[in-house]
């Protein structure tokens, strides 16, 4: 199996699917000749031409609105929003239109497309190039939300997303675009949506995490192991719909849970996960569930490493939970 980084794996998935299905089109700002500002679509323009890899005018509302129209016609658009921070001009199209098309048309017009967008911090991007807005889409009925943490999953989840009948927001953690490397299956390789993966098995504390923070959680888990605390680490992969079963199974075993995410704490996905655990496994809990997250401030530039929930903040939470 070839070694790839996330960028290459996503590129591989797009190329594979565009070869397999000529309805698939890629559109967005700078996705063509230059291959996207992160080079994720590099080479696709040369292979598929400007009717399938489309540099659009600078309008996110325009990109998503027209992509919806293309989808209604029967194409399979994979629009790119250059940074997830810039998705908001298209928010109305996503929330009021895309998410509701199937429902509002009695199933007549399923609008399905996959919005790819780099997300998260740690790249010296300040608050307009670092946010993690996943919870704002999870709150909208009708959208699926995905966030891979490694190249093989990135390819498999993207192919599954493109083939999924529903609209998917595909958040790509840009901090690990090139840093996360690994073997990626060639050809057709899908990872089912809605299935989390247990990345590390453990007995004492369950850590729920996704995206770039997975590596911080694993680092903290290794440090905790040196202190005799054995952590189970769950990488959600699909954020919505949530694989609640895997989480609950783990919590029933450990009785202790720490949820880690980059997004601000309040009303984040962490809060929802804790609420679900309370509803479904309250009597199994040995300690109050903890959240280690970004702060409820805009994402800062200079102090970004203090903002992110890195291992130095995850470890104390693990210890506190374990010793409660």
């Amino acid at each position: 199996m070839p070694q790839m980084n996330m960028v290459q794996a996503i590129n591989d998935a797009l190329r594979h699917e565009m070869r397999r299905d000529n309805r698939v089109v890629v559109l967005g700002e700078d996705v063509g000749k230059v291959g996207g500002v992160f080079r994720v679509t590099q080479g696709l323009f040369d292979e598929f031409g400007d009717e399938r890899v489309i540099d659009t005018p600078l309008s996110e509302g325009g990109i998503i609105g027209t992509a919806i129209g293309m989808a209604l016609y029967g194409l399979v658009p994979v629009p790119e929003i250059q940074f997830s921070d810039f998705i908001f001009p298209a928010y109305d199209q996503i929330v009021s239109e895309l998410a509701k098309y199937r429902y509002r048309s009695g199933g007549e017009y399923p609008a399905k497309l996959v919005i790819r967008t780099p997300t998260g911090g740690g790249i010296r991007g300040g608050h307009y190039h670092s946010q993690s807005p996943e919870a704002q889409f999870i709150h909208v009925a009708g959208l699926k939300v995905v966030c891979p943490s490694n190249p093989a999953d990135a390819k498999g989840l993207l192919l599954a997303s493109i083939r999924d009948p529903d609209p998917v927001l595909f958040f790509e953690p840009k901090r690990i675009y090139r840093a996360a490397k690994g073997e990626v299956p060639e050809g057709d390789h899908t990872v089912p949506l809605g299935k989390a993966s247990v990345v590390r098995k453990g007995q004492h504390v369950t850590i729920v995490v996704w995206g770039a923070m997975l590596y911080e959680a694993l680092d903290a888990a290794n440090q905790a192991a040196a202190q005799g605390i054995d952590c189970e680490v769950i990488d959600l992969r699909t954020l919505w719909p949530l694989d609640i079963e895997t989480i609950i199974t783990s919590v029933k075993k450990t009785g202790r849970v720490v949820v880690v995410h980059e997004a601000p704490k309040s009303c984040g996905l962490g809060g929802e996960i804790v609420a679900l655990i309370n509803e479904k496994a309250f009597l199994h809990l040995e300690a109050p569930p903890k959240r280690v997250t970004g702060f409820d401030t805009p994402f800062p530039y200079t102090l970004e490493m203090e903002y992110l929930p890195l291992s130095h903040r995850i470890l104390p939470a693990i210890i506190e939970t374990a010793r409660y």
Partner: protein
Amino acid sequence: MSTATQPASSLASSASGGSMEGSAHPVARHPLDAHAPDVVRVLRDDGTLDPANDPGLRSDEVLTLYRAMVRARLLDERLVLLQRQGRIGFHIGCKGEEASILGSAFAMRQNDWIFPCYREFAAALWRGMPLQRYVDNMFGNTNDPVKGRQMPDHYTWKSGKFGSVSSPIGTQITQAVGFAWAAKIRKEDAAVLVYFGDGATSSNEFHNGMNFAGVFKAPTVFFCRNNGWAISVPTERQTASETFAQKGIAYGVPGVRCDGNDLFAVVKVTRDAVARAARGEGPTIIEALTYRLEGHSTSDDPKAYRPEAGLDSWRRLDPIPRLRRYIERTTGWTDAQDKELEAELDAELKAAIAVSEKTAAPALESMFEDVFGELPWHLQEQRDELLRGPRAKGHGH
């Protein structure tokens, strides 16, 4: 495309020589068409001025502007170097667009305001932001006007009647219109100049802003720096209109095009627009035809999408040597004076950089300030948690 006869100047060769590879149709909206008859030009190739549109600048004013343009150029070059050396994280420059930015900022009156895009640090400096504060922003240190919260080149300068830079494209346009509209409602004589690129004319906010300003006759000067590109996407991918100026027609906003590399032309059209606003006649859209000589920012490599060949003609149109020819003709300005000026500016920059680089990062607790007017309980809790530690390793806190 304008069918105007090809002018016989050196610019003509650039107009044809620079046409973009792969572009289906060389259209008038392309900035290489700075010779279309509707484009206001004042500074001729021989360094003389067209009396019909001469804004009548005093020679000391021209020299001050020349100085500011050279300073911006040196800053750009120095900041790119600092970024390459890993000493700052990012820079987005104005190389080639100095005449557009300084000419328009100069043409605004003292009581007028400027709402920036992100390429107009020279306008902020013109409006009085100290160089040190600007460089502090590049380092995101504790003296940075935005306290290290935003990326480099995202500064603010309210006391200079200069707005705050945001990354999302186009958002400042409706805000500028609202600001100008408020001044009108309060019967105060203030106009607002709002900068944006050609790409921004595709954004929702451009259309909203133009429409509101037209309807309410808000005293707004829409200043489109048509520099040919929105990152890798050329102007003809932003619009099928012949020009950006003509977009005003749909909104009842008069549009004018000018040679954006001609300081005098920019001053002339901006002054006219401000005068119109001051007379209560409402907004104007200016399309300044200029060119981005460098990449979009330090994160971009234009080699992937832009043929190097097209650049030569634009280098010949560089606004700084063009103005230099004028001041040489009118004041006898010499190469020795240029050297002296550059040495002086260079020393000033180096000193500012040395100070900024040594200035401490913002305090940890500053992360929680200014989120709200007062610190609510959850932020107090989170701040205390952060202060208790532990600290991220290797990041100087």
